[in-house]
């Protein structure tokens, strides 16, 4: 028990003194996951609008499929990305395996289904009369889509935050394709897992606390949005 307590005290010390190792990992984690979320967002918002606003055969099935991938295990995505970028894989020539870049690609792939699916349901939640009203006031089809996206903005932001939460908290993919290289691809989750197995509890706890703090901030922002 005292070991945990000591670990906790030490961990807070590491955070308060802005320990370079801890801060480096935190910064890298945030950079990778924020970038991955941005990429996924750039893909999912237009794609989600496209799916929502167009009628086509198999739309329902497609949406079901997207929703199925919400809970895809991170290690499965990790395996897929690993095979894709390993030396013998189709994209092996790019030499990206065990770099932050491939981690960003992997995390973006991981959260795309969630972000896409939630974007579509956010848009479906908007009154059908909204785009119609916009068009009747002289909006072009594109302007009407923008109006609907703006109406759904809180739900869309919530979707983005949830996706970011999934990206920053996953460990399997980061470990498999990032390799947990110190100072290069080591992020919160991989560091915690490694330090714990090494017995270096205080660093693990410090990183865990920061990770929980980030989750807390996301939650507060989400709650604020939902109350509006």
């Amino acid at each position, binding site marked *: 028990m005292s070991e945990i307590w000591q670990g906790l005290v030490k961990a807070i010390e590491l955070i308060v003194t802005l320990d370079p190792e801890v801060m480096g990992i935190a910064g890298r984690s945030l950079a990778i996951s924020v970038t991955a979320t941005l990429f996924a967002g750039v893909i999912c918002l237009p794609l989600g609008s496209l799916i929502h606003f167009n009628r086509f055969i198999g739309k329902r099935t497609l949406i079901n499929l997207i929703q199925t991938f919400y809970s895809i295990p991170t290690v499965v995505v990790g395996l897929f990305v690993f095979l894709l970028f390993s030396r013998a894989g189709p994209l092996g020539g790019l030499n990206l395996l065990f770099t932050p870049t491939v981690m960003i690609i992997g995390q973006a792939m991981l959260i795309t289904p969630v972000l896409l699916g939630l974007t579509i349901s956010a848009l479906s939640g908007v*009154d059908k009369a909204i785009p119609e*009203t*916009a068009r009747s*006031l*002289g909006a072009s089809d594109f302007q009407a889509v923008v109006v609907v996206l*703006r109406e759904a903005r809180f739900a869309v932001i919530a979707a983005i935050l949830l996706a970011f939460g999934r990206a920053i908290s996953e460990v399997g993919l980061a470990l498999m394709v990032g390799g947990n290289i110190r100072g290069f691809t080591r992020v919160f989750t991989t560091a915690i897992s490694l330090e714990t197995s090494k017995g270096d509890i205080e660093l693990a706890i410090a990183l865990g606390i920061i990770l929980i703090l980030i989750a807390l901030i996301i939650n507060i922002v989400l709650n604020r949005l939902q109350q509006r």
Partner: protein
Amino acid sequence: MPLIETVELCQKYDGRDILRNINLKVERGEVLALIGPTGAGKTTLLRLLDLLEMPSSGKIYFEGRDATQSKKVGFQMRKRMAFVIQKPIVFNASIYDNIACGLRWRGAEKSSLRQKVSTILEMIDLSAHQHRNARTLSGGEAQRVAIARAIVIEPEVLLLDEPTANLDPLSAAKIEELITSIIHQYGTTIVMATHDMSQGQRLANRIGVLINGEILQTGDPREVFTLPMSREVAEFVSTDNIIDGIIVSGEGGMVSVDIGGSKIIEAISGYPVGEEVSVCVRPENITLTLSKTTSSARNSFLGQITGVVSMGPLSRIEMDCGFRLVALVTRRSAEELALEKGKQVYATFKATAVHILRRN
């Protein structure tokens, strides 16, 4: 050239006829009310006029140009109009931004946009609340914002779908006032749908009666209300006192209509003897007295009151005169005559108050 003209316009949804052969002309600056019961196709017609949907057949000409030829032309035409749909929908944004959106989509300059929006805000009496989220508005206020949002773009045609439906009388009166001031200030061409006949009468200078997807009659409000051309229109504009009969004699424009039970109604009409007709008498043109009068009115029937319904300042008296007859009298005279169920009264109306319709 009319501003808008529709030629043989038809619309079908899933093989069901919603509109049939609509031929309508709207002149610049006129206020046309489309009246008709719910489900008659008024909304569909407005949506077609706004090019929000394409007709299954027929054409819509906007200043002589076929607006149905392509989506692009339709969009160009739609930009010159504004349509206020029935359910007031406001965007989840401030009142100011709601009103400004149409101008922004048209790429309006910032300073002129601000000036136009504030003018309209004053007109709808919501200047003080312009930064409030429009979602917090009441139904009547939201409808005012919806109308303001439409007229701020100074459309050539304003389409209004049941602008006062689902509003309380006070809010409805405010909306009508707003529409009246739009007509006076902007001279906008307006096509409005309403199921409220009196609203059509108050606001419009021409009325089109749309029943079951067909325009059955157009004309100035007085004409439509006093001289309906068919039984359907008559039933809609005055649901009371449509009595079937046959013309049994006629001389010098005066005819006698046998309505059965050896009752004869005298009326002014040019229809020949033997013609099967319907007799329409507006309830407000019937006078009730307790004893037989010696007035010049040609038609007088003794009847028994079967019901008295108070309608604010008026009372609606239902009678059995051998046929059913309904009269509207002021509440005061109903009280003076002590009209009540079971009482015998004389119902009297002039031959000129009778409108004769030919039955098909």
